[in-house]
């Protein structure tokens, strides 16, 4: 088979060479190649007995050796026009149509060469035709017909490159198997990346397979977040399990009196997904940290409310509440986000060892919790550890499932370059917490772990408080992150809270939360894009009625999309060292989206899509004063009259 390919390659190169060289050199080159090939053919005699005489090249060689040289330039076109087609078949059919070749035995040595040149493209030969030709040829040979047919069929197929009919193939050999493309398992990929990273850093902390699997599971959950982040309309089904874990985890955590029944009720994949999406989108809004302080108190209130809500509920109620809470979860997410920041920033300060240690802890816990969660749902297991960890992870967010959702979502989804490593470890922690609480009962069982986590969490908080300015000079991001993090109200309560609840009572967590919360409850809601607008736009483009469920999904997705957009925008603004979003930032955003290219500058898009008054704002136009007033008046009239008039006539001359 390789020989065949080499032969075809040689033939093609021979074609090229022959074109350049004179006829005789061509023939000599061909002869050399043919001799080479003939030796190869001899070696293959046993397998391809017909190749000895069968291939056109070998035949040609015989002809050349036996016949006087004929100039290929002498055009015997008439007789060979017919044979040209035959010769065109020759490269494709290695073994077939010997009969046709025998006709122009004398003349076309050169012709065949030139003909070979013309046949760049191999004519696809039907198998039946080939079989017929092979049958014609077969009686000439002594080889058993069946063996020949299979062999020739195989060689033919290989030469043509067509797929085999499966029943005619005895042995696959070099034939191409049908490509079975596995969908890239993002979770596995992410897991492997994490594993690589952690393994490369040092095996000290991650010796157990447990921890590694824990990391993987945590990564899986973060991968779920990742997959949530990709702007797809349909959340993948494999997320359901983890989402359900998280969702159910969030539920029981809030109140002491969570029942397993509640938890099992919570495991409604669809709604969880929605909530998850909403939470993710909510988390993204955490980018605007300015809101945090104002909302921190409200978050605590919400925690209390949610806790009271959740305790006695039925499934429907819970789900409803969850959906209601999802819009409120933004503040929760913010708090959780701030929590993450707080936890994250200290990591920059301490050595990498500490972070590894934290990771290891998280991994262990995650592994414990996630595996248990996945294995047995609705079973009361180490709920305490999970609950504790969750309480650890986020100050206020522990209270509400929404917040926890946010945490996981935010952790998974959020790609703040500031938090990066710390964030991810915190993320894992949050996920672990979520998963565990999902599965387990209220009671804290694994207090030891919890305490450890408490201590570990407390360290960063304390470090963060103690070393406000001692970031590395090169670590601009930690400094930047630390500065607003310190300003956050929650940072201090977090430190206090971490220090305080050393007692492994989960009950303390919800109790301490309401104490700190102020009066405002649920008042500052995150601004949302109005649902009616989304509905109208979607209906306009769908051109058919849209069900409420579909619209809900569209709303969630668009919410997440815009949240991701705004977080990107904020990152770009911060990247330029500014605090105010400007048109340049938007241009970068649109460039990344592919809307703005070198061929399509921003101004063209502005002129095309924005109403005139916005255009005037964005694109400065110089107008002489004398004309300006008249022109402005014209513009005003045009705007007042609506878009029906052609406003282009009012543009400055």
């Amino acid at each position: 088979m390789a020989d065949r390919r080499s032969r075809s390659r040689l033939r093609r190169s021979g074609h090229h060479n022959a074109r350049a060289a004179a006829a005789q050199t061509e023939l000599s080159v061909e002869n050399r190649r043919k001799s080479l090939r003939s030796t190869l053919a001899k070696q293959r005699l046993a397998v391809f007995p017909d190749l000895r005489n069968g291939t056109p090249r070998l035949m040609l060689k015989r002809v050349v050796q036996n016949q006087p040289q004929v100039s290929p330039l002498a055009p015997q076109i008439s007789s060979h026009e017919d044979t040209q087609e035959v010769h065109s078949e020759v490269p494709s059919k290695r073994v077939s149509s010997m009969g046709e070749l025998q006709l122009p035995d004398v003349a076309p040595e050169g012709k065949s060469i030139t003909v070979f040149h013309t046949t760049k493209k191999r004519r696809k030969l039907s198998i039946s035709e080939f079989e017929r030709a092979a049958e014609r040829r077969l009686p000439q040979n002594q080889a058993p017909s069946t063996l020949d047919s299979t062999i020739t069929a195989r060689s033919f197929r290989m030469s043509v490159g067509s797929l085999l009919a499966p029943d005619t193939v005895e042995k696959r050999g070099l034939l191409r198997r049908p490509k079975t493309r596995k969908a890239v398992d993002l979770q596995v990929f992410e897991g492997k990346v994490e594993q690589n990273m952690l393994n490369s850093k040092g095996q000290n902390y991650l010796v157990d397979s447990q921890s590694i699997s824990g990391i993987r599971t945590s990564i899986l959950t973060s991968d779920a977040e990742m997959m949530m982040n990709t702007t797809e309309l349909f959340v993948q089904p494999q997320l359901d399990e983890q989402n359900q874990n998280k969702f159910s985890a969030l539920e029981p955590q809030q109140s002491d009196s969570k029942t397993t029944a509640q938890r099992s009720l919570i495991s409604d994949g669809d709604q969880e997904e929605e909530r998850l999406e909403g939470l993710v989108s909510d988390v993204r809004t955490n980018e605007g940290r300015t809101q945090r302080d104002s909302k921190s108190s409200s978050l605590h209130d919400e925690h209390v409310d949610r806790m009271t809500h959740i305790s006695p509920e039925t499934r429907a109620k819970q789900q409803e509440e969850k959906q209601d809470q999802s819009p409120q979860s933004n503040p929760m997410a913010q708090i959780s986000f701030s929590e993450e920041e707080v936890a994250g920033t200290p990591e920059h300060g301490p050595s990498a060892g500490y972070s590894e240690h934290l990771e290891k802890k998280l991994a262990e816990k995650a592994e414990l919790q996630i595996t248990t969660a996945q294995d047995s749902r609705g079973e009361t297991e180490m709920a305490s550890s999970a609950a504790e960890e969750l309480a650890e992870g986020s100050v206020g967010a522990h209270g509400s499932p929404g917040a926890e959702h946010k945490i996981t979502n935010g952790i998974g989804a959020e790609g703040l370059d500031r938090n990066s490593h710390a964030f991810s470890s915190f993320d894992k922690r949050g996920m672990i917490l979520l998963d565990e609480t999902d599965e387990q009962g209220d009671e804290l069982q694994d207090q030891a772990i919890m305490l450890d986590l408490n201590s570990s969490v407390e360290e960063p908080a304390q470090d963060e408080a103690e070393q406000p300015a001692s970031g590395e000079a090169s670590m601009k991001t930690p400094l930047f992150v630390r500065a607003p993090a310190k300003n956050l109200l929650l940072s201090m309560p977090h430190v206090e809270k971490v220090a305080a609840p050393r007692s492994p009572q989960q009950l303390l967590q919800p109790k301490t939360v309401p104490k700190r919360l102020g009066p405002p409850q649920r008042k500052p809601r995150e601004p949302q894009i109005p649902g009616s607008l989304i509905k109208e736009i979607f209906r306009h483009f769908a051109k058919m009625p849209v069900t409420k469920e579909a619209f809900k999904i569209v709303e969630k997705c668009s919410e997440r999309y815009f949240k991701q957009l705004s977080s990107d925008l904020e990152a770009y603004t911060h990247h330029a060292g500014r605090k105010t979003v400007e048109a340049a930032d938007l241009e970068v955003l649109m460039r990344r989206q592919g809307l703005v290219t070198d061929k399509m500058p921003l101004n063209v898009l502005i002129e095309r899509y924005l109403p005139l008054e916005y255009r005037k704002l964005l694109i400065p136009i110089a107008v002489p004063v004398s004309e300006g007033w008249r022109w402005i008046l014209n513009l005003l009239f045009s705007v007042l009259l609506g878009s029906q008039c052609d406003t282009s006539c009012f543009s400055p001359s």
Partner: protein
Amino acid sequence: AGFGGWGERLKAAVHYTVGCLCQEVEEDKDVRFSKQSIAAISEITFRQCGTGCFLILCRHAKRTTVTTEDVKLLTRRSNSLLKYITQKSEELASSNMEQKEKKKKKSSAAKGERTPGEQETAVTENEDSSMA
């Protein structure tokens, strides 16, 4: 874009490096890379570095040098990748700081060393990003 006569050589160098890295991964994971995939990876890398997000972002920051910040911005989406790159950048920064300390002790010129250190970080960071 602005590579002039170096374009082909650079592309070949990138392709070679990508091939070496893929070979390491092959041995590590016991998988095989087809030629097309390696070519695709190197093409993407080259295009991104040439006329792609890197330049857009660094121009947005009014800089002409691509730094670790640009790389981190681009890897924001993938958490593990972001984590990895941040770790690497931290390690490099710390090692650079040590080198700078040594240099400062040896020579008296303090400012002159800062810029080459940053650029070095940027270059190596880019390599790491391609590696990651």
